[in-house]
């Protein structure tokens, strides 16, 4: 695609702009900001990737991944979770999931150790983990708030914090995994997954594109399970104090 043709695609921005005017939706500013930000951010990423691919140095790969993890962590923390000191726990979770998935992919030679593979897959893994982390933390704090009575009941009968929180933790882990599993069941029926579509447009063999998409789907299942479980086990102790008491209120 030339920049000329890319400019033509702005038609797709123009249409909603007209609509929001006509219908008085008041979304002009958001539309413009979204457009400008996506252009700048994606072009920057494009040039950055071109540079990293060119350089072929592991230092730059590591740097890119670090950047992703920092951005994802910041995003989770910005969503304002009620769990104190969550930032470090989220970062550790992302690092762990990245090391685990890349360890398997590279260790078994499933993907070649080149930035063209490592970076986009890391992006998907960390991005997906980020969404799950937000989902899980919201669900977990809501669950604890709604079932405070039960948590206190277990404590009052001589249960440890871990025993008291266990049912709530399992519930939250399960609930945060369900959307991932549900969306994967209908995968390909209505909508071709983004990465697969991209590969096909880029000229890849559809079967090869499907193989990669399957890899991602399987990866994301690990992601969903490990992210919620790890974050859960890392974060529940902060809901209790040294006297095994539930902290009084989770500020949300």
């Amino acid at each position, binding site marked *: 695609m030339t920049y000329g043709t890319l400019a033509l695609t702005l038609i797709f921005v123009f249409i909603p702009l007209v609509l929001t005017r006509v219908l008085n939706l008041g979304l002009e500013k958001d539309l413009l900001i979204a457009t400008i930000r996506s252009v700048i951010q994606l072009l920057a990423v494009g040039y950055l990737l071109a540079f990293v691919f060119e350089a072929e140095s592991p230092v730059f790969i590591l740097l890119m991944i670090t950047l992703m993890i920092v951005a994802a962590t910041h995003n989770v923390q910005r969503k304002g979770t009620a769990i104190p000191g969550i930032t470090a726990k989220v970062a550790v979770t992302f690092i762990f999931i990245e090391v685990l998935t890349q360890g398997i992919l590279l260790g078994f030679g499933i993907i070649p150790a080149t930035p063209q593979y490592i970076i986009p897959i890391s992006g998907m893994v960390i991005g997906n983990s980020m969404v799950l982390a937000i989902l899980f933390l919201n669900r977990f704090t809501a669950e604890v708030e709604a079932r405070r*009575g039960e948590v206190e*009941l277990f*404590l*009052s009968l*001589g*249960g440890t914090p871990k025993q008291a929180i266990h*049912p709530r933790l399992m519930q939250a882990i399960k609930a945060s995994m369900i959307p991932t599993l549900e969306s994967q069941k209908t995968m390909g029926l209505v909508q071709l997954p983004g990465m697969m579509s991209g590969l096909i447009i880029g000229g890849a063999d559809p079967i090869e594109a499907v193989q990669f998409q399957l890899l991602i789907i399987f990866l994301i299942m690990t992601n969903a399970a490990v992210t919620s479980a790890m974050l859960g086990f890392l974060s529940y102790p902060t809901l209790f104090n040294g006297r*095994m*008491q539930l902290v009084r209120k989770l500020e949300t």
Partner: protein
Amino acid sequence: MEDRFEPAVRFENVNYSIDGDLILKEVTGSFPKGRITTIVGPSGAGKSTLLKLCNGLISPDSGKILIDGRQTEEMDPVRLRRKVGIALQDAPMMDGSVFDNLEIPLVLQGKRLEPEAAQSALTDVGLPAGLLSRDSRELSGGQRQKVSIARTLINRPEVLLLDEITSSLDPASQAEIELLIKTLNDRHGTTVIWITHNIDQAVRIGDYTWVMMDGKVAETGEALLLHEPATLQVREFVKGGQV
């Protein structure tokens, strides 16, 4: 303040606040060992808070609570909570059957509840053994209260804290529970601290009583003091009867 009896639980200048609001103010006093003490007072007076402090679910901001002379803050929380058992207000239930609920105290110790033990736990509180498999969400208010008491008793606590356990029971069930607790107190010397909003009940079952008002101990003494309170505010409260 010297006690005229051996205290099972003693409060010394206990303060407790939530978000800067003082809920309990300089609470001092004792609960006699092996006896039944009732706590009465208007709702919001801090009665439930007082019981949670005894059981270690919350800690005081200042002052101390002594159980058999030992400060709660220095005891292992799990040991404290098994020794000082509480039947919480509103009798919270875990999702699952009545049996599952009765088993909680044992499961927490890695043990199982024998079916016969579960049956007698239920019949002790006046419930039919057939209720064991009932979903806890299908229990009536009164049944919940009884299951809650039975569950607390599984730990065989030395001190038993009861928070308005008969408020949703009919008179016959109330009498049943009163008899159960009295028998327990007689046979095992269990110390009982029982919050009730029913003044008649407080006089009927209590050896001793605490009247709480606005986060403070208004009066303490023999249960009969409720028939002739020393202070005006307590007299007004008792005359108002309930609430």
